[in-house]
């Protein structure tokens, strides 16, 4: 029963929602609009579930004294502070905005900015023209990198100014994005789309049941 009910619901809603896409009749569209409004109500529960899981995970970390368990207290301090201010006073309250602007924004931005340092270091140590394919990748990456910043065109126009092509760095980058990149991306999109369709059919028909849990 525990598994049959979700399977029946999934099958029924899956088939009905597919059919609504092929029928412009008001009855069919009425069902579609109704189901969409149901899903909007269900969505916020994911946030509740996520918060519960976060609490559960960090309580377990503290109880088991796993590596760096002390940082779990920082998680709770952050969570409780934002909830205590955000829930009664709203996200437009001065204190909430101050915490967001002065703590969350700099921390998030810092984490992302660190990538520049690691990418530079990794590029220096690992980006080698060992094979033909690696050389091709290396040259393409260098062209795209230089075409992505104005200094690329400046160097091109200064050093290769005698060529009939102006702003060659950005034009070469654009050609790479418009041709080899686009072709490869389209292939990936088609493959992924076919995969999504087949997986959706498997889920609707109850062949794929991993979303029910239990390793089935």
């Amino acid at each position: 029963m525990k598994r049959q009910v979700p399977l029946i619901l999934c099958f029924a809603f899956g088939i009905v929602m597919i059919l609504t896409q092929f029928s412009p009749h008001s009855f069919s569209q009425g069902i579609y609009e109704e189901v969409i409004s149901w899903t909007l109500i269900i969505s916020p529960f994911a946030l509740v579930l996520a918060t519960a899981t976060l609490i559960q995970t960090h309580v377990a970390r503290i109880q088991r004294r796993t590596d760096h368990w002390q940082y779990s207290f920082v998680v709770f301090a952050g969570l409780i502070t934002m909830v205590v201010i955000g829930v009664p006073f709203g996200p437009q309250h001065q204190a909430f905005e101050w915490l967001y602007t002065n703590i969350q924004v700099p921390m998030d931005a810092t984490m992302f900015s660190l990538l520049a340092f690691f990418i530079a270091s990794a590029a220096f140590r690992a980006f080698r023209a060992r094979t033909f394919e690696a050389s091709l990748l290396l040259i393409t990456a260098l062209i795209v990198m230089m075409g992505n910043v104005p200094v690329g065109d400046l160097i091109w126009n200064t050093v290769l100014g005698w060529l009939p092509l102006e702003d060659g760095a950005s034009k070469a980058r654009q050609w790479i994005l418009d041709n080899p990149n686009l072709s490869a991306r389209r292939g990936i999109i088609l493959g992924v789309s076919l995969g999504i369709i087949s997986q959706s059919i498997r889920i609707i028909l109850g062949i794929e049941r991993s979303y029910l849990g239990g390793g089935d």
Partner: protein
Amino acid sequence: MNRRIVFILVALAVIIPMLLPVSLPVSVSEPTQQLYDYITALPAGSTIMLAFDYGPASLAELNPMARAVLRQCFDRDVRVIGFTLAADGTTLASTIMREVAEEKGAVDGEDYVFLGFRPGGTQVMLGMGNSISSVFETDYSGNTTTEIPMMKEITSYDEIALLIDLASGSTTELWIIYTNVRYDLQIAAGVTGVIISQMYPYLQTGQLVGLIPGILGAAQYERLIDVPAKGMLWINIESFVHLLIVLLVVIGNIIFFNQRRREE
């Protein structure tokens, strides 16, 4: 070379151009020009939607785009409905809209409205196709959506001339799949550098009417509206970092080939 030296070089490549600003010429790419032209061609009084689908981690690239687009819209009397699908982007988006509106004298509720955040992603996209006020019953300030002056004549995507998705993830593709295909909503995007390449198939098919590619696109847009700001500053800084990385890769390869030759 020790990785600490690389880190110091990167830090210097960022700090020095920041202290001694240089101004490099920025040429405008076709996708950025397309979006600018599209908004320019909209009649005064049209309404666009601006989805702030990013959080603080990507603000360096996407905030300058948001400001540039908002400036162009308010200058041309194009009304803007802002909202976000990213919970951590709410305060960020609200602040940007408020600041640019104050700068341009735009009035909340008449020239723009910020609806805030709703969880659900694709459900929010589909739901607004039926009724915007059924998804966002109130705006971010708590006003009932249907009672906001500019929202009285806007019920769904039918009254929206364009949706611009400022994204750091895969939301643009979802907007295309769920709203362009089903509701024929015109879509443009401003995305971070790492996902630019994913957008090109949609540009070619016309499912994206324009694209602002990363911080370079932000600088290009600032040039188009003739208001140089952080996009211009940061693309110049990025120029030096890219140059440094290219030099590091070249040096790394010279060392690699020398070592290989000696081993042989």
